[in-house]
Structure formats: structure tokens, C-alpha cells
């Protein structure tokens, strides 16, 4: 499945409107914001259609994942948006992750705990809030709800790091090590990023952490808590991925849609996350231009002045 889908669902009291555009969307946030009510409305509509009294407008079928025989449900459902409620005991299991792997559906998961077995983006973690703007001009008796990003990472400004830490071990690390004059360290994986950042921040150093936003969702709570402890000297930079940066930097001619409307290109059945999609795009586009891109080892071409300068332009907020 690919594409961006608007979901509008309402009854005579509540109105929800939001978009989903990747394999996995996570909804968290305060209690009593209407998460369970949303799921119940989807379930009622899915069971009874228009005779439920609920109106659902969406270009794809919407379902709620049942507790029993959920594996069969996933296998037998295609091109649909499947909502998963937090009281499903299997959400954290490897079996659930396996079922979502290369699935032909999008999933909206209501869950506050992090889900490290799933690759989800920091940009697809939301909370439900009342949309007070809508209140002004539509039906006054309805409460309008929408979803809002929990993590709004502002682009950092004027950062002079003492240490740069990358979650990438090989190619990404090799590149940033060349780009930055200061020390560059690999954390050897996303789960160790916060510990590395904390270690250097504790030494009084200004630390810039570079992570792949497209798959860092599960580690974001921990990272934000680490950053909040060291407000002035821990900065996080989270582009979609290292490969996205290279594609975005105009080193190659990249069709605009791939970067701006990725949801129309990244097929969920093939790519678990946009990080994988951008990696494949970079590999393929660079091959056409006569260069090999591999995650394991960076071709010398990417370490050339031309490439470094182009990526530096995208990272003008850093004094390299």
C-alpha cells in the first residue's frame, strides 16, 4: 500500500479528521482525549456501515484489529487502514512485528510504551487534541478532534558541536567523520545514542546527535528525556535518514516527488520504513550515475569535496 489518506469520521457529537501516510502511525497522549472513542467509532462503522449512525470518509477501508485470530485478519486484509487498540496483549510481541513486516496495509496503533521491534518515524507519533479552529466555522454542537505531532523538532540554529554522534556505524559515520572537523563518534546503533550523548554532555561538551528520524520513533521518548536534562549542550538532528540527506543535497538528479511526496512512492509491502526506501533509491540512482552506494562501506565519491559541500549546505545550522 502507498499514498496519503484522509480519514474523516463523525457522529452527532464527535468529529475526527486526520491523515495517515506511512506504514505505522502511533497515537499517544493524555487520558480522556478520545482515543478509545475513535477506535469504537471505527469498529462500529466497520461492523454496521452507514446504519451505525457514523459517517466515515476515507479512500481506504478502515478496520479495528480483533483480539482473536488477529494474525489471519492481517494476512487476509489488503489495502486497508487497520487500527490497533492499546489493550491488545500482543502489540509488543515479535509475532506482531513479523505480521506487520511487508504488510499491504497501514496501521494506526494507540500505545504509550515504545515499540522497539517496529520501525516507525518520529514524525508519525501523535496525540489527539480538540481542533479549536474548526470549532469556529462548522457545526457548533460538534467537538472537532484532530491529531498533532508530539515531537516537533525545531531545526537547530548556530550549533558548534564539540562532538558529533551518529547512530550509523558504517557509511553514515564515515561521511560525517569527513564532514565535521570536531570529533565524530558512532554510537553503534540507535538504542545506544542517548547513553553516548549523556556521556559527552556530562563532560561539559556540546553534543550533536544525528539520527535517522524515519525509524527512530521507538527511541524518541528516551532521547527527549536525555536532551531535556542537558538543554544547552545536547542537540538532536533527525533528517529522515542519512541517505535522504544525500538524495536531498542535489548530488544527483532526484525526481522531486520521491523526497516531497514519499508516501506516493514508498510501497509498504516492500519497505518497512522510509529509511529503507531512501536507501534503495540512493543505491539505484547512484548506480545509474556510475557510483556504488552501500550502507556497509562508503564509496570514495561520496567523500569528495563536491558531495561534502552539498550536504554542508543542508546543514548550515552547524558550524562544522
Amino acid at each position, binding site marked *: 500500500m502507498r499514498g496519503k489518506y484522509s480519514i474523516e469520521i463523525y457522529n452527532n*457529537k*464527535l468529529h475526527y479528521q486526520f491523515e495517515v501516510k506511512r506504514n505505522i502511525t502511533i497515537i*499517544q*497522549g*493524555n*487520558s*480522556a*482525549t*478520545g482515543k*478509545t*472513542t475513535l477506535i469504537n467509532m471505527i469498529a462500529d462503522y466497520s461492523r454496521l456501515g452507514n446504519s451505525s449512525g457514523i459517517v466515515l470518509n476515507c479512500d481506504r477501508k478502515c478496520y479495528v484489529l480483533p483480539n482473536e485470530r488477529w494474525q489471519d485478519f492481517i494476512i487476509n486484509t489488503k489495502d486497508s487502514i487497520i487500527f490497533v487498540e*492499546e*489493550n491488545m*496483549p500482543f502489540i*509488543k510481541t515479535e509475532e506482531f512485528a513479523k505480521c506487520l513486516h511487508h504488510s499491504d496495509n497501514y496501521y494506526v496503533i494507540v500505545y*504509550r*510504551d*515504545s515499540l522497539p521491534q517496529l520501525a516507525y518515524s518520529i514524525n508519525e507519533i501523535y496525540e489527539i487534541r480538540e481542533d479549536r479552529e474548526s470549532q469556529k466555522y462548522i457545526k457548533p454542537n460538534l*467537538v472537532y478532534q484532530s491529531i498533532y505531532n508530539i515531537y516537533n523538532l525545531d531545526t537547530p540554529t548556530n550549533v558548534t558541536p564539540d562532538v558529533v554522534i551518529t547512530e550509523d556505524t558504517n557509511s553514515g559515520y564515515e561521511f560525517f567523520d569527513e564532514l565535521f572537523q570536531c570529533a565524530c563518534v558512532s554510537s553503534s546503533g540507535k538504542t545506544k545514542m*542517548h*547513553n553516548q550523548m*549523556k556521556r559527552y554532555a556530562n563532560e561539559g561538551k556540546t553534543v550533536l546527535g544525528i539520527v535517522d528520524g524515519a525509524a527512530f520513533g521507538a527511541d524518541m*521518548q*528516551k532521547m527527549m*528525556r*536525555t536532551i*531535556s*536534562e542537558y538543554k544547552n549542550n545536547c542537540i538532536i538532528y533527525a533528517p529522515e535518514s542519512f541517505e535522504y540527506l544525500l538524495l536531498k543535497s542535489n548530488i544527483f538528479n532526484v525526481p522531486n516527488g520521491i523526497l516531497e511526496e514519499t508516501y506516493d512512492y514508498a510501497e509498504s509491502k516492500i519497505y518497512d520504513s522510509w529509511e529503507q526506501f531512501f536507501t534503495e533509491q540512493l543505491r539505484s540512482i547512484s548506480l545509474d550515475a556510475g557510483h556504488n552506494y552501500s550502507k556497509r562501506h562508503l564509496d570514495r565519491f561520496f567523500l569528495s569535496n563536491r558531495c561534502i559541500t552539498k550536504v554542508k549546505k543542508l546543514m548550515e545550522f552547524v558550524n562544522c
Partner: protein
Amino acid sequence: MLNIIYGEIEEQNYIFDPDTFFNNTYEDEWITDKLSIKMIKDVDKSEVIGPHLIESPVLGPISQKELSGGVKTLILINNDLNHIFNASACGDNCAKWLLEIGKVKDVTIRLGYFMDFGDGDFEIIVKNTGKLVRNRSELDAEIIDNNLI
């Protein structure tokens, strides 16, 4: 005292889904209890009319089974001391009530996320390590340094 077990637990008396457990075990007097009335007002913005009727500003008259999962969990934690409840069913807006309950009762809950207990001082025992923490910074460090979640 508020005791928190972070991460996954397998205790026999652990309740993963407090919402469903509440629907099948609540007592009428739990709803009309003074603290419950305050918690329902604060978290769900709803008024307790009686043990079987709540007035919600959005949904109108509702039953106790239609309270939020967060407030149901708070009511269980305050009234059923025989079980350990999954407080991941509670959002950050339940944190102050967990601290309130912990001031007068010895309760143990399970958490799987970084609930925000606010900027003020508090007392929480992190059961995984046995450490008493007194503010958010100490709590975060205890969770992160010991890789509890």
C-alpha cells in the same frame, strides 16, 4: 508511597488491561468516593451524578463504563490494593493523581513509558532498583541508566 515497576512484569496479580478489569470488578462506592469524583472531574472533565451516571461535556450522560481508561485505572489503583495495574493506560494528566494516591497509600503500579510527574518534588520508589527518587531528573536518570524501559 508510590512504587513503580518499570518495563515488563510477570507477577500473577498484574493486570495488563485495567479498562476491562474495571468494567468487571468496580464497586458503586468507588465511583462516588471523594477522590474519584475529583479525578473524574479533572481528567475526564465530567461530573459524577451518581454511582451509575456521569455527565460528560462531550458525550452527555454516560455510564461508569464509559469513563476514560486513565481514570478507570486511577480508581482501581486507589481502591484495589491486591493487584498491580498497568499505569501505561494512564496519560501524563493522571500523574498528579498517582502522586496523590501514593501520599496516603502504599501502592505499586507498572509503567512502560516516561510518564511526566512534573517539575516539583515527589517521592517515588523505583521497585526495579529499590531507589527512592525525589524529582523528575532523578527518576529519568534511574530509568535511563538502568535501561528499565
